[in-house]
């Protein structure tokens, strides 16, 4: 596992049923582009998060394909509809095969 990878997400705890909420996510990751060289002139191999998904109770909100041009510590902000109470799951896919996941519950009323 790439070292020090840590997801952070910001989701409101409550929402009115059917309302739109704003979600922010960020994961600590170098996003090594594969275009940089180390001090000895060797290319540092590419190592990035290549996909990010957000789902709610099994239904997709957003599915993002990332290229090396996404900044270090990838950040996304987007909007979701909350049809009922439930749980958001966020998943980041690393080039090295690792998958990082975190989830947040929300109460709809």
């Amino acid at each position, binding site marked *: 596992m790439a070292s*020090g990878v*840590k997801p952070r997400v*910001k989701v409101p705890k409550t929402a009115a049923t059917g309302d739109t909420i704003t979600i*922010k996510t*960020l994961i*600590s990751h170098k996003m090594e582009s594969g275009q940089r060289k180390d001090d000895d002139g060797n290319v540092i191999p590419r190592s990035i998060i290549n996909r990010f998904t957000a789902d709610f109770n099994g239904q997709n909100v957003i599915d993002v394909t990332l290229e090396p041009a996404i900044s*270090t*510590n990838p950040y996304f902000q987007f909007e979701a509809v909350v049809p009922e109470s439930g749980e958001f799951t966020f998943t980041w896919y690393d080039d090295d095969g690792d998958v990082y996941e975190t989830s947040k519950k929300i109460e709809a009323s």
Partner: protein
Amino acid sequence: MNLKPWIAVLVAGVAGAASAQDSNTLSIDGEPMVTEVAAPAHVENLDTIYSGWRFRSAETQALETDDFDNPAFVFVDQGIDLFDKVDGTENKACSSCHENVEDFAGLRTQLPRVQDGELVTMENLINDCRTERMGAEPWKWSKGPMTAMTALIGLQSRGMPMNVTIDGEAAPFWEQGKELYYTRVGQLDMSCSNCHEDNYGVMIRADHLSQGQINGFPTYRLKNAKLNSIHGRFKGCMKNIRATPFAEGGDEFKALELYLASRGEGLSVETPSVRN
């Protein structure tokens, strides 16, 4: 004003773009920060002091106004983990002795300070605990674990005014720092004051020059996407004027840190800030 010839050209070249610092106000997660205040009496050549935040572009500024948007908090999170992590021969974590990190509120505003005849910075205090109380290796001055911890501890003072002691035992250190601030060094033969006192507010190439305040350290820089220590930044500025930088953690930089902290008296601690 004593403009170096090349600066004079630069200033002339961007007349118009060389606006004064922006007139907007900073609040972080709704908490107002003091980014502009009358200069303390011991800062002879300035009327008003400004946080470096005021000189950044709107997009960079915005990153600091919300702790979620501020990428430095990735490292604050790492600091929280480190605070609870057992390390060293004594089998202790910081939290074994310091129950709440919140108890460090106010500490950032008072550092560096004199202790047992020596000028100590936050890095010194942390490493003293590691070597003497935990039996652990000291952390490197500007590396990840140290800057994560100084960010976490400094954050506890956010919004409080900078307020270092400069008289009494601190006076000789402060004088040394002041001397260094005004001494021209390097191939470009410049002092800190040539840029940060004589020419703040102008564009130097594409960079908007600030007063070089340290109320936001460690700072997350877009340039290297990590936290940067105070001494690391001093080093960078010295390299840019083609001078051989002093050592991080050395007497010169500690004295300079005290002097700069005193030049920011009254500005809010913004730790961890965001800069370009």
